[in-house]
């Protein structure tokens, strides 16, 4: 049976490498029960994801993790199989136009994780069901995504709900930072 073969990390790696030669040498087993894949852009990522879920039995979804890698954002999909081996698949998406496809139809428990990607990283999740935002409050300024590396909580004024980084701004002198810091207690 195929399932009985899938209880070993090395076998899983070789199955994936065999099916997707571009992943040759790009999967690692850090310790028993933890498999890590290299980041891939959407075109290469989704066939690997579908293969892992549909054919390798990684049909238990745990969570999504967003990462700010500078030029690109990455989204980690944490999956596990019946033998409790965890597989971390990474999808890259360009910072200029960050978009990933929703997996909510397949895994209903991805909902809050996908909303988090939209709010905290500003990654557009296509196909996400309508609903209230999560976790930022209503009235949070558009375009402000706190988990991006260039977003500094020091420059956020909680009273006016505005983000005021230092630097030249139209009609405003640089150096207004001290006031802002004072206000943002």
């Amino acid at each position, binding site marked *: 049976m195929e399932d009985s073969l899938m209880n070993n990390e090395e076998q899983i790696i070789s199955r994936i490498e065999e099916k997707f030669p571009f992943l040759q040498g790009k999967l690692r087993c*850090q310790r028993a029960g933890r498999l890590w894949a290299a980041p891939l852009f959407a075109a290469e990522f989704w066939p690997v994801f579908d293969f892992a879920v549909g054919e390798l039995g990684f049909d238990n979804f745990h969570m999504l993790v967003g990462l700010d890698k500078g030029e690109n954002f990455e989204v980690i999909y944490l999956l596990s199989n019946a033998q409790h081996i*965890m597989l971390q698949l990474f999808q890259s998406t360009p910072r200029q136009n960050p978009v990933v496809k929703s997996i909510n139809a397949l895994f*209903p428990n991805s909902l809050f994780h996908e909303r988090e990607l939209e709010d905290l990283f500003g990654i557009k999740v296509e196909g996400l069901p309508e609903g209230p935002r999560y976790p930022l409050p209503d009235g949070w300024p558009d375009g402000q995504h706190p*988990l991006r590396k260039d977003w500094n*909580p020091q420059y956020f004024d909680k009273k006016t709900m505005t983000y005021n980084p230092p630097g030249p701004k139209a009609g405003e002198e640089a150096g207004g930072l001290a006031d802002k810091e004072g206000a943002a207690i």
Partner: protein
Amino acid sequence: MNKRIVVPIGPQHPALKEPACFHITLEGEKVVAANVGIGYNHRGIEKACENRTYIQDLYIIERVCGICSHSHSTAFLQAIEELAGVAIPPRASYIRTLFGELERLHSHLLWLGVAAHEVGFDTMFMYTWRDRELVLDILAMLAGNRVNYGINTPGGVRRDIEEKDIRPIKKMLDTVEERNKYYINLALTETTLHARLGGVGKLSREDALRFGAVGPVARAAGLAMDVRKDDPYASYAEMPFKLITDDHCDVFGRVVVRVLEIMESIGIIRHILDNLPPGGIAAKFPRRIPAGEAVSRYEAPRGEDIHYVMSNGSDKPERVKVRAPSEANWHGMAHMLEGDYLADVPIIIAAIDPCYSCTDRAIVLAGDGGNRVIDWKQLRSYSIDWHRERGVDISKIKLNIP
């Protein structure tokens, strides 16, 4: 055709001391749809961790949750210990396991009380919370605090278990075991409890899988799922205990799972006390951690807790991500509410045991050098004085209540 109305419940919820907002669509008294709104308590902990050292992060992470504080700090430390390549001493591993089980014990007793209260069974609420105090006293004796024990440190634990501590712990276990036998008997034979909770908040095995339920909610749907067995951490591989499951798939099943798990936790704690390995309690741990990433899993009282940590070679993490068990269980909530009555909503919500802190009694151990126990009245006047010294006189604030 019945008229449908939408009842908003929350965010200041009548049942939970924690903000969440539910929009319940009713047809008569039946719930036909439910919308779960959470996020009122987002504190930006993940971002805060990126700007602080691993040691500072440990204190923040321990405060993710008041009840599961040990769960979060252990899950975080397991990840950074994997990254640093540090193995903790066996004695430290046993002590972490001991605290994990004491935490499960007091958390489950707390939940039993909350569940009983939600269905108007306040006698049981008072019984279980009385018993929970015994566990909290032991935690205060061992760690100096009732919750947020601060026992963990990178590479091990901060305080040892001494010979003199073992007797009071065993005495507490005997009492809690005796009383829990009564609760088990009550849960399994008391017909009114079954009549009130049976068939309420249904989540079938298939739906539990589909919505990614964890912990007692999943186990009460017949799923044999427990990180302590599936992906053993700390010293669980050496611990003798049964994985408790139940096939009721409702709130009643969640009661059964938790009362039976209390017995297993008692067994684990006894095993630890009788087999505590000798040796040190902490390994040397580097300040800077080599670049890498790790995923750590922990079976908190409410279910699987996952921490992801990415290090960049410095003394501060590049990214920390926490998936608390309640976050996983919220996804199935709307489904559990649908088809039930409005009056069942509080107990169904409470049945996943969403976290809230219970720190309104304090034992002051630091500050003026002496230990003292202060009651609620003293704590209140201490708070008023504390603010007055800083220029804010709370006693003069007038509330404008229309």
